[in-house]
């Protein structure tokens, strides 16, 4: 009897500790579980910590070749500016400059290198989205970060090193505020 009491107490322990060991069960039972292959194919949004990055690597040199061979230069300009598409390189004023001095130049203004990788991967080249291999995306990302003095020539980027890059704006941006229903959009602002 005493033993049974002990067992019961032990089984309650996770609850007392606030651990929810049991999965929430569906109410309606509609829909099915995705396969691992399905999840991997669609799981393309890259977090700042980079856990979705595919295995691969690329270099500045390869990126500079791809920039021409994949026709990036045709829209963004041969030097990363002056084309019909958004500019990709800051004004040539050297390192340690305020990234907010330039317009919306993604590879210098973005707080995370993962955003650069993600956008090239999902949305480039225009009209041929989804055709770049992971290695090509690592190389193009490396080239654009090199052009903006973020990384040195010769840097090899891969799924481990990319999220570790210290972008100049890493901590230099305004976090979006916590959102709660039925609250004014900015405390103290009457409008």
């Amino acid at each position, binding site marked *: 009897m005493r033993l049974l009491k002990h067992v019961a107490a032990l089984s309650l322990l996770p609850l007392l500790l606030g651990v929810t060991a049991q999965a929430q069960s*569906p109410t309606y039972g509609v829909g*099915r579980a995705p396969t691992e292959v399905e*999840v991997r194919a669609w799981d393309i949004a890259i977090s700042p910590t980079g856990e979705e990055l595919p295995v691969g690597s690329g270099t500045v040199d390869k990126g500079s070749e791809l920039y021409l061979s994949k026709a990036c230069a045709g829209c963004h300009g041969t030097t990363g500016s002056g084309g019909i598409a958004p500019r990709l390189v800051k004004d040539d004023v050297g390192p340690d400059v305020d990234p907010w001095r330039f317009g919306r130049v993604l590879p210098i*203004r973005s707080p995370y290198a993962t955003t650069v990788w993600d*956008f090239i991967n999902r949305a480039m080249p225009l009209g041929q989205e989804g055709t770049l291999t992971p290695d090509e995306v690592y190389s193009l990302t490396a080239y654009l970060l090199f052009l903006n003095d973020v990384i040195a020539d010769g840097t090899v980027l891969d799924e481990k090193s990319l999220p570790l890059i210290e972008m100049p704006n890493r901590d230099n941006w305004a976090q979006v505020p916590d*959102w709660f229903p039925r609250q004014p959009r900015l405390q103290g602002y009457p409008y």
Partner: protein
Amino acid sequence: MSSKQSDRREFLKRSVALASGLGLGAATQPVLGQLPGPEAHQHGTDEIVAYGKRSRFVTSVRIPHGGRHSPDTFGLDFHIAAPLQDSVGVITPSSLHYMGTTRGSFIPDIDPDKHHLMIHGMVDNPLVFTMADLKRMPSVTRLHFIECAGNRSSSRMTTVQETHGMTSCAEWTGVLLSTLLKEAGVHEGADWIVAEGVEEVKGASSLPMTKAMDDCLVCYAMNGEAVRPQQGFPLRLLVPGFEGIFNVKWLRRIKVVDQYYMTYNDYGHLTQDPANAALGYQIGPKSVITYPSGGQQLPGHGFYEVSGLAWSGGGAVSRVEVSTDGGRTWVDAEIRGTAHPMAHTRFTFQWNWDGTECELQSRCTDDVGQVQPSRAQVAEFWNIPAGQPFSVKGQDNSIQPWRVASDGSVHNAIA
């Protein structure tokens, strides 16, 4: 019925016909039995029988917005503004609903039988839904506006379509996102979702879990029929009151995560200014007079029903005031029908124009207490010196002034 009664009825009918024919003949002498009708007719077509069409005399149309043509030379659609100057009531017809895309987009041509929505990430039960699955789930139908962050008036603009046409309101039907998230079982610490579309850019936005669980809708219908392709057919996310870009179209995936992802759409909101970050998220209280508005012409002095739209991303519109003297004095307008949360609300104001030059304005208050500001009030709040050009922080919800000249022409009065 007996034959005797039937005869009597026939007799009475003839008598009436004869009498009315004689009466009319005496006045206008038409061919006996004919009434005046329309001058022209339209022969029925199978197409119009199947899916109706408006009159050829109704010519109200959308226009490209923001200085870039849609479609562009590649066939990409970018920003298209709704003709608010012709709007009545609060529903924007689906064909006239404004639209925007992340960077200009081809409109996906999706077979709904092959479309899926996947919910995965920090959940107990990752799920894939077909469209048929989603239509089995408990549904809701709600009125909501969507407004583009680029809906910003300036002195260079003439009409209300140019100044405010990047907002629209529809009746949306779908499943509450909270229903789907609860079905999947969200983990502790999962404070964000990333919602993603299937178009070639695969536009994705990060949203706080508090919003996802509050009132977001996964919509398959608008205005009583399937969501239109430009609006995300077969499935779109509706994020009531948030800037347009969060309302992910052609929705195929929701990932439950523990951090802000800084997607490309999120990066578009990037700012150094915490106030700008806060004000570029949930849309503020806003209104505009649609009649009379810029580019319109009043035929002369006398009575007019001034009419306009008011909305807020924070809740329902609780009050609209109108000024006819450039904001010096204000009078309550009438709110027409029920003011729904995060929905366009129609207001009207009975006005006798004396024929002298004047300036019309409207001002909205919402039920969380926010009040629509004038540009001068915004400048004062942020200590911007008078006369210095400035851009309203975040979403521009400032008051739109319309100047009515003594000749009845109506003009944008932003200095």
